[in-house]
């Protein structure tokens, strides 16, 4: 059975997470070693599985324990391939970045890496899961790890942000579980494929819409969509830099957007033609998030808080693109997941380097870093350009696809709004570049020097991928984004493939 690689996506990070506390008692550096090896292996197998499915053209599947429909299903199609690749590339960079970044904390190395591996395990498990309750469990695993990681520094702000984040996140989790219970009450199955067949037979009843609403609220809290964004800025602001990169680049998109897409498109079978109300709702909330997040980002004077509000704005882009609902819209959304994860990962890692080397991240105090930290500066600039949608970087193509989608769907005002907020993004990111990296001051900036090699390496790896995804956008579109968009567009095909295979 070709799918036998799939359990490893969960087994490797979990094994790492359990080994770290054991072996780090012997030698504290084992934690770095195990975490790096585990995340490198994960990156390897995610690329390998992607190669398998793009060569064979059929998704991988796996029944845990061999119990078929009674048991837990694992599923790896083009959409999973995209998501898993993003999780593991950002996870790998965050891990190797953390090795030197953690020097500023006096203790608890092994706790950090255990939690980071649990976070990665939860995200990977969510991505490959084909079972509703299992999805919930993995969402909670990664969420609990992320609460603890936000509070990792145990300073006042960090604990406060973590508590706030945790209360909101757990209420979201409880609402999700409530939705799952409702679904189970009617369908008596948890397998996503089976569930989608049962739901297809039920029709669009009020119950159907009520369950959708419940699940949407749960996912909206997890992704920090506009009315529920309060936790996001504080959590991103307070977390250690690699965790901010994971949270912003991966966590909110996988637990929020991926979870929502998988359930809504493949299980509930929404489509632009049949259920326009759902898509219009996505557009409305997305547009509000995009506008408010972008405007709030403009007013911030803290580097990381600015980036956090920018994440809310970009989540808005994603929702708008999904709401457009045609091929270009969805392809644009998925491309944007890649582009934003890579670029925002770079920006947060660069922010971490700046904070570590210069001792502050207040934009008013940072000056002239370009002279002393060239690699960090240029990574930051390239990532900013990509975020703002300048050619030829990845962000340009994602926004281009979204605008093409909006134009073909005849939503001209949406295309205009998307283009306008690209400019706003450029505005607030150049503000950072101008103030902190280039503005000259009479006295020499600080004693800042370039960050340690491993941290620079992790940042550069992400930047190179931003460049590669932009220059090779055709390849990314044909082999990664296009097939994934088709998975979402042919929503109910999913059930046929799973149950037939």
């Amino acid at each position, binding site marked *: 059975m070709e799918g036998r690689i799939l359990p490893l996506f969960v087994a490797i990070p979990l094994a790492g997470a359990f080994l770290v506390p054991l072996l780090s008692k012997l030698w504290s550096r084992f934690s770095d070693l195990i975490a790096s090896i585990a995340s490198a292996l994960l990156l390897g197998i995610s690329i390998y599985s992607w190669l398998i499915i793009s060569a064979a053209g059929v998704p991988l599947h796996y029944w845990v324990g061999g119990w078929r429909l009674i048991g837990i299903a694992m599923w790896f199609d083009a959409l999973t391939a995209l998501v898993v690749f993003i999780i593991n590339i950002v996870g790998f960079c965050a891990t190797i970045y953390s090795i030197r970044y953690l020097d500023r904390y006096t203790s608890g190395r092994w706790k950090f890496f255990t939690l980071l591996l649990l976070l990665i395990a939860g995200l990977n498990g969510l991505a490959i899961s084909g079972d509703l309750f299992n999805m919930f469990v993995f969402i909670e695993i990664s969420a*609990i790890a992320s609460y603890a990681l936000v509070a990792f520094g145990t300073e006042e702000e960090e*604990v406060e942000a973590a508590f706030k984040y945790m209360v909101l996140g757990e209420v979201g989790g409880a609402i999700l579980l409530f939705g799952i*219970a409702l679904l189970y009450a009617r369908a008596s199955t948890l397998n996503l494929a089976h569930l989608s067949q049962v739901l297809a037979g039920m029709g669009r009843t009020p119950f159907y819409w009520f369950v959708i609403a419940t699940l949407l609220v749960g996912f909206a809290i997890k992704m920090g969509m506009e009315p529920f964004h309060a936790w996001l800025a504080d959590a991103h602001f307070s977390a250690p830099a690699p965790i901010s990169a994971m949270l912003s680049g991966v966590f909110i998109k996988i637990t929020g957007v991926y979870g929502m897409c998988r359930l809504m498109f493949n299980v509930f079978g929404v489509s632009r033609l049949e259920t326009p109300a759902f898509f219009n709702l996505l557009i409305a909330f997305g547009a509000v998030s995009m506008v408010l997040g972008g405007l709030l980002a403009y007013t911030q004077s803290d580097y990381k808080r600015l980036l956090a509000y920018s994440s809310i704005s970009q989540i808005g882009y994603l929702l708008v693109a999904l709401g457009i609902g045609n091929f270009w819209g969805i392809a644009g959304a998925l491309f944007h997941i890649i582009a934003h994860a890579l670029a925002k990962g770079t920006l947060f890692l660069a922010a971490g380097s700046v904070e570590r080397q210069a001792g502050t991240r207040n934009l008013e105090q940072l000056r002239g870093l370009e002279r002393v930290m060239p690699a960090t500066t240029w990574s930051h600039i390239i990532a900013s350009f990509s975020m703002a949608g300048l050619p030829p970087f990845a962000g340009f193509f994602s926004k281009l696809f979204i605008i093409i989608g909006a134009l073909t769907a005849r939503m001209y005002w949406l295309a205009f709004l998307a283009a306008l907020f690209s400019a706003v993004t450029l505005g607030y990111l150049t503000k950072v570049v101008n103030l902190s990296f280039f503005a000259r001051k009479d006295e020499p900036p600080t004693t800042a020097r370039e960050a340690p090699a491993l941290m620079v390496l992790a940042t550069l790896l992400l930047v190179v991928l931003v460049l590669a995804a932009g220059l090779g956008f055709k390849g990314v579109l044909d082999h990664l984004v296009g097939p994934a968009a088709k998975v979402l567009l042919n929503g109910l095909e999913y059930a046929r493939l799973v149950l037939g295979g």
Partner: protein
Amino acid sequence: MIPYVACVLLFLIGLYVVISKRNLIKIVIGFSLIEYAVNLFFALVGFKKGALAPIITTLEQVRMGVNRNFVDPVPQALVLTAIVIGLSTTALMLSLAMRLYEKYKTFDISEIRRLKG
């Protein structure tokens, strides 16, 4: 029907506590109420009037195969999992509340406002 309504009521009471109370510990308690409401709801989903607990206790039942007169065991298994998740979140929340108390010397959230956002 009444038990379901009671679940929703319990959920709403929990939500009210989380939103309106200022004491950190009370917020944790409110969160626990939400969690119990959802768990109770899930357990109710599998309930069947007059059915037995889904546990095989005699060899006879083994030979007869699946006994039709069981309640649905799946929600119970899921609720157990959800309880374990709830345990870990409650523990983490309480430890965060303790850390907050150590830092700010108060449980009142209106005084814990170092962050502006």
